[in-house]
């Protein structure tokens, strides 16, 4: 029994040792920038918070996955059959089982804590947005309406309509759908939201860096889903206002008055031919 206790103590020490290492690693890493880990660092403030959470999850997954995989590979290589003797038939070890129940629960609670934290930041809606935009998704295109500014941008499929945002300012997006479920998604923003009939979704985007970002419908919405593209162009507030004035002067000339042309809308057996 004494030997057992000792080995259990060693085991605990090892577990806490690993925990300590993670904490040290965490402080070191939070001081510098976390790597992108294949994703985007987030062109918006909200997207950047998401990226930080994602990067931490990658680190956690590498640690947890690494330990689990090492144990698995060790078992496979170390306990390859060597003789015909029947191994000891042990079946239960309650302290061990409790250990690998409690540790995952702790990990889950930590992940949940940070998740809620970031989720509240990403979903937060400011009381005084700089600009309000109503985005309407339809089969198969996008409409970006700036109701206070009387500017309306409209485009179908490969026309790639452009939503212009002021960099560094908060834009309030109200997202709706004219027909089926669509997905508003910009990869550099690390964010997507459904545009659904019967649901009005509201969220904020605060772009950090000026630039043009490719967006696309992500929720399958019918025949031309793959070509339901749009762009988000973020410019300095000065450039934003000059764009607004230019649009107002042109007087909605860009607006296509009717919904996508009937040729696109019709779904018949003809659509089976090449397009």
């Amino acid at each position, binding site marked *: 029994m004494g030997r057992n206790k000792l080995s259990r103590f060693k085991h605990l020490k090892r577990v806490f040792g690993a925990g300590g290492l993670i904490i040290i690693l965490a402080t070191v890493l939070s001081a510098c920038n976390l790597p992108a880990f294949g994703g985007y660092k987030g062109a918006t403030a909200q997207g950047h918070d998401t990226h930080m959470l994602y990067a931490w*999850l990658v680190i956690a997954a590498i640690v947890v996955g690494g330990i689990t995989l090492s144990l698995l590979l060790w078992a*496979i290589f170390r*306990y390859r059959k060597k003789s015909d003797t029947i*191994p000891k038939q042990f079946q239960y070890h309650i302290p061990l089982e409790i250990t690998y129940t409690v540790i995952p629960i702790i990990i889950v609670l930590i992940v949940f804590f940070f998740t809620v934290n970031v989720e509240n930041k990403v979903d937060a809606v400011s009381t005084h947005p700089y600009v309000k935009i109503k985005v309407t998704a339809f089969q198969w295109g996008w409409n970006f309406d700036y109701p206070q500014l009387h500017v309306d941008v409209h485009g179908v499929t490969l026309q790639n309509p452009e939503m212009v945002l002021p960099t560094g300012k908060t834009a309030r997006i109200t997202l709706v759908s004219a027909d089926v479920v669509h*997905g508003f998604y910009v990869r550099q923003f690390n964010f997507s*939201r459904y545009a659904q009939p019967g649901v009005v979704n509201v969220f904020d985007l605060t772009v950090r860096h000026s630039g043009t970002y490719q967006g696309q419908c992500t929720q399958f919405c019918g025949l031309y889903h793959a070509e339901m593209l749009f762009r988000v162009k973020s410019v300095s507030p000065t450039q934003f206002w000059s764009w607004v004035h230019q649009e107002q002067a042109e007087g909605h000339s860009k607006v296509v008055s009717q919904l996508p042309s009937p040729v696109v809308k019709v779904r018949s057996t003809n659509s*089976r031919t090449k397009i």
Partner: protein
Amino acid sequence: MTLLEEKQLIPTEETKHATTEHHEPSGLIKWLTSTDHKVIGKSYMFTALILMIIGGAMALIMRLQLTSQHSSLLSFQQYNELFTMHGSIMIYLFVGPFAFGGLANYVVPLQIGAPDMAFPRLNALSYWLYLGGSIIMLLGFFTASGAADFGWVAYAPLSSAVNSPGAGPDAWIAALVLTGFSAIFTGVNLVTTIFYLRAPGMTMFRMPIFVWNMLVTAILILMAFPVLTSALIMLYADRHFGMDIFSVKGGGVPVLWQNLFWFWGHPEVYILALPFFGVVTEIIPVFSKKPIFGYKGMVFATLAIAALSTGVWGHHMFTTGVVLLPFFSLLSLLIAVPTGIKFFNWIATMWRGQITFTTPMLMCIGFLITFLIGGLTGMFLASPPVDFQMHDTYFVVAHFHSVIFALVLAAVGALYYWWPKMFGWYLNDKIGKVQFWLLFIGVNATVVPWYILGLHGMPRRVAVYKVGMGWHALNIAATVGADITGLSFLVFLLNIYLSWDKKVPAPSNPWDGTTLEWFTSSPPPTHNFTRIPPIRSERPVWDFNHPDAIAISAHSQKAPLINGAPPGNGRATNGNAREATISGSANSGTTETVESD
């Protein structure tokens, strides 16, 4: 001993009469008319594998389309039909029916010492509904509108009569209603069989883990499938009788479809997974020569997964903006705990064992590694902000393909493992190992590029993608992986053919198996058992063959975990003297075990 001497295997007048009276049909008539769970189980597995080959071929065509950015191999319409049918076939018609219709049907009655399922004719009805449904779904391709093209999830209102007119979508709905009923009947059958037809001595906590998992799967089926089936009937009514349940115009709520669908859809994930967790839990101990580590923990983990799985459907809807994010997030994350318990139990089972790397064991190891990747990436998607980033991108596609490919590895392992029992001859182990490496490398070479594609923002369900997004090379890599996966199944078919040609005969217990199915002949007789060993633990056949190696608890090494006498006491090594015999006629379906002393 006197009891044993009384019950010899001498055919009495009564049994002789019964055997001459009972003519077993053979050939095609046998397959068409049988209510034997073994025949139905094999029919299920055969049908499911054919459908998997069809669905897999569709996947390969789609991969070919995506190899170049603006491929004109398929039109948008054809591509949309293909991914809808690929998903539908694989989820509704292959993985699930293969597991709870095929494997469970074949293995559960054998493992609990039962002569058949509780309701043999209902069982046959299940199979015929499933076959009928599958054919109807495929017939969608021959309708004027083409097959269903709204994705396997059929989100309203894209699936409405206006947005998706035609007979193809209707065929899809009808097919799923039929297979839904088939699943419900199978669920009823499995629950009843496991509760009422266990052999004497087979208490709940002496059931093999596979049986436990099938019981929990069946309960999940009974909770989830009626919801899907009724939602489909609502959808049909919307399409044809103007019910407007899912349309805004008529005062309906489109997002209700998503709620109903995923209320089935997430338990469905575990309806697919739990049977294969069971398979792995059967195979690993046998080839490690050890009992499953933490048997009771395993059972409670299964129950916990099932319980949690009914409360996590909202994680498919994080980006709808209409679900309570923290609730669904926490419950989804918590599923990692019981799943982790299972994973560590599998590793602990191999720990200090004597592992032999036969094909079934290799497939299980492939399952573990692939499933580990799928499980860890699931943690990302359970976190709403990260899900906002990943949702509907290839990251999600990669995540669930990791999980399902892991199940496929386990399914192929299960076939190699139970094949000698089902047919009386082995599949070639060397070709099996070739298949393992192709399959394991193929599936991971497919999903790893997908994870990166998802992080780079490639949306799912697109037939073409924009030049200059940086997705091209990764798509080529994924196609190569998919082709290797396809090749592995050609090797599998070749193996079946070559092994069938040779027919290396298998004994009743080729792997030193531990559960009851290895006690009867290979293949088993019509009513499964002519004799049954005493059942003192979840490993009755092991206890019978290795009376000196009874399971022990690791930290109190003396206490035997088997009720009754301590190990070795009164257990003669001469097996024949201790065999219990069946009383009465095999046709009556009653079996009786005799305690050894």
